[in-house]
């Protein structure tokens, strides 16, 4: 669940996004080649605003130059589903839309609101994306979508100053993190973690990382599909592991009460603004909030990979999936272009962008930080997983006061009984699936 595109806050995110981009390489689109889509007009809808929007529009302009088509960008606002729903009903959807959740993709596919990828677009997907990624945008074997812009959800942000004061290093394993890093920070009088408990989606992200690393990708997929129940011992194990942090009121800024009441990105401010805590877990987009809180990303705000709980460190990714919603001329060509390494390399150079395209080279990125992130995604290969809460029915995975959000918030409040929590999750899942 990425929630950082604030409706009234375009400018703030934009400014921070720009900080991520070390240099602004101009878009290097290919030379115009004849313009075989001269006069064609296309509409693309996504939730990006500010700098994110500017960068995307710049990427789109490459397509315009190559083909002669005109592409119009429509911002959807925060709730893409609420924006598209009525448009679909009214029969006027945009040609291409960027969906923030695969769950939405499935829903629209079931309503016949999507056009399957074909021709160049299908070929581009085949060519540029490895198995897991291409399946992500498919429903019943039919490919509909391309993961265009990824969000890396397996990093933990920290304040180097606090680490130095306590004399600790970024941990490699979960046990190190809990046993050494957190406890030493605590001894040094630094609160180890800021939690964003009031924003339920951050808690599902915690769970997904722990579960993916501890139970492995295969179980992760089965749990996502609800093929195994939430009462499965692997879930209980993951909850017990999480309780090693969540159960320690002293490890969280504001104690347990404070942890549940702090929203994202206030938790980021607690680390980088008020300096009340040393670490905060959330995705790469924390960079924007950290910068806003006064930190310099890469210097006073740094991140380490989510430590391995089991054999391998998890790599959980979220992101926006491009789909075709009309059969208008040029739609598939536009998707093919967006899926290409060329377009995404341009985008990577603009900053604030992470690709899931296996053909985009690490050196395409404008800054070291994103380059390293992209490397972890490539290294994880087939073991990368997409955010679980965005794949399950939104009633269960992405609704305030419901399902995973609410149950995990209760668990953060009192992590004493993982089995009961697993049962609560299963009950909520039963209701939603």
């Amino acid at each position, binding site marked *: 669940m990425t929630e950082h595109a604030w409706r009234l806050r375009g400018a703030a995110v934009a400014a921070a996004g720009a900080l991520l981009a070390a240099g602004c390489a101009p878009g290097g689109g290919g030379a115009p080649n004849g313009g075989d889509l001269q006069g064609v007009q296309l509409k693309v809808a996504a939730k990006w605003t500010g700098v994110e929007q500017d960068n995307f529009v710049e990427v789109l302009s490459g397509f315009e130059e190559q083909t002669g088509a005109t592409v119009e960008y429509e911002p959807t606002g925060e709730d893409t589903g*609420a924006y598209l729903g009525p448009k679909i009903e009214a029969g006027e959807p945009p040609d291409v839309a960027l969906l923030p959740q695969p769950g939405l993709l499935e829903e629209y596919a079931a309503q016949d609101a999507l056009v399957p990828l074909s021709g160049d677009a299908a070929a581009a997907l085949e060519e540029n994306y490895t198995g897991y990624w291409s399946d992500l945008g498919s429903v019943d074997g039919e490919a509909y979508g391309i993961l265009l812009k990824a969000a890396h959800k397996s990093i933990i942000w920290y304040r180097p100053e606090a680490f*130095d*004061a*306590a*004399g*600790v290093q970024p941990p490699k394993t979960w046990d190190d993190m809990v046993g050494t890093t957190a406890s*030493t920070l*605590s*001894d*040094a*009088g*630094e609160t180890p973690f800021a939690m964003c*408990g*009031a*924003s*339920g989606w951050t808690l599902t992200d915690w769970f997904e990382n722990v579960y993916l690393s501890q139970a492995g990708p295969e179980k992760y997929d089965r749990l996502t599909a609800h093929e195994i129940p939430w009462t499965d011992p692997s879930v209980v194990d993951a909850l017990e592991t999480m309780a090693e942090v969540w159960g320690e009121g*002293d490890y969280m800024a*504001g*104690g347990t*009460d*404070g942890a*549940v*009441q702090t*929203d994202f990105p206030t938790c980021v401010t607690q680390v980088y603004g008020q300096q009340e805590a040393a670490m905060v877990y959330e995705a790469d987009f924390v960079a924007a909030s950290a910068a806003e809180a006064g930190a310099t990303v890469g210097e006073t705000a740094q991140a380490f990979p989510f430590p391995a709980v089991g054999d391998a460190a998890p790599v959980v990714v979220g992101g926006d999936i491009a789909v075709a919603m009309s059969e208008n001329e040029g739609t598939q060509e536009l998707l093919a272009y967006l899926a290409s390494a060329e377009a995404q390399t341009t985008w990577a150079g603009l900053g604030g962008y992470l690709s899931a395209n296996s053909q985009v080279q690490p050196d395409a990125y404008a800054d070291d930080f994103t380059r390293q992130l992209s490397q972890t995604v490539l290294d994880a290969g087939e073991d990368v997983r997409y955010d679980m809460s965005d794949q399950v029915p*939104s*009633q269960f995975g992405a*609704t*305030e*006061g*419901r399902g995973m*959000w*609410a149950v995990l*918030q209760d668990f953060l*409040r009192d992590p004493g009984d993982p089995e009961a929590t697993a049962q609560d999750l299963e*009950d909520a899942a039963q*209701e939603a699936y």
Partner: protein
Amino acid sequence: MAHTPQPPDAGGGATTEHGPADPGPPGPGENAPEGHEPGRAGALGPPSWMALAFLLPALLFLGAYMLYPIGFSVYRSLWDAPGTTFVGLDNYVRMFTNPPTFVALRNNVVWVVVAPVVVTVAGLVFAVLTERIRWATAFKLVVFMPMAVSFLASGVIFRLVYEQDPERGLANAVITTVQDTVAPAGDFPDASPREGSGVEPADGGYRLAAQVSPGGEPALVPLVGIAADDLPASAEPAAEPGAAADGAVTGTVWLDFTPGGGGAEGAVDPEERGLPGVGVRLVDDGGATAATTETADDGTFSFEGVADGAYTVELDPRDFTEPYGGVTWLGPTLVTPAIIGAYLWVWAGFAMVLIAAGLSAIPRDALEAARVDGATEWQVFRRVTVPLLSPVLMVVFVTLMIYVLKIFDLVFVIAPGSVQADANVLAVEMWRVAFGANDQGMGSALAVFLLVLVVPAMVFQIRRFRRENS
């Protein structure tokens, strides 16, 4: 501002027959105007079709936005989420079995039982008290003002008030200030014992597990968990306790953490600092305090002239008292009462103004007569004022009840994400189900249920209206 307003006083402002500039309010005690019987247009009246022309726009709107939706909602509530399968009363059954909806129902009951009573009583108290001050108009304006602003703004205002951190939330700031005067926080609330050092918690303070005896080994009390910045300025580098002479017990209480790491655990390292001003006491085997002292700036302490025997070294809990964190207003247990508090803030003015108008309509003679008969003021209030006011109180109460049943904005805005489930009410649940989860079958069922709940008010209303106009 509130939705779906209720009907006005049947007399309207016109009954007072002031000029247009001074319409006068509807007096709650007044009845329908006599003399000019409304509506008997007589022979001169226009034909019926003309009336229809005047009514047509209104009827179209009422039909499209009220009658049709009622019918459609009832119909839709009998179908499943996508509207493809007829499920009969399933949605209604689920409403009472589904845990989130059940919480909503339960909270609505709390709301309906508590909020109207609290607000009506507050309104009555304010109305009576304001009769005794010269600045009543100003007071009423202030208390009535929240009625003019949105529930959203009121919600934002109370989110600020209820903020957990006493540094930022007004309610907790007030409470903790009071509490801290009663029981002030210690200098080292964050401290915890160095693990494996033999220091253990005791009644809020700490003690050494191993006993000491005069002239024996010095007592080392290593503590951790205090940020270097939080040490008092007077703290000096910790010193090893001096060897204890006969009849003396010495020791050091210090922050056993070398900035930047390193240093041996449980040993006084060069860069570590002492904890000054910590109360230390020697407790003998009988549990009696043999002696007390305070640590010096370098953390050392010593007791002289101690009788032989084994003692326990204890640190005074007062130095480690955690500051009172305030009340978790917006936690799962208190969130509904907290929102009812905000509701009182918004609606008390409404109750007060209506009741005050009712009070002013009470005949002076009735009160005077009671007083002449020797009734105390309390008796006058109980026996005369309140009974005469009861129609107005009833009006206020029923109106509040109708609004409370449909309460949406305040709950939606004040409850943070993590307690939305605990604060849930029917109207919020309806919105969530119908537009969040896209289950319009269940959403319609909830809406119909709300409609059923207000039917008694509807009947009350129609009967009252007919009585007044007959």
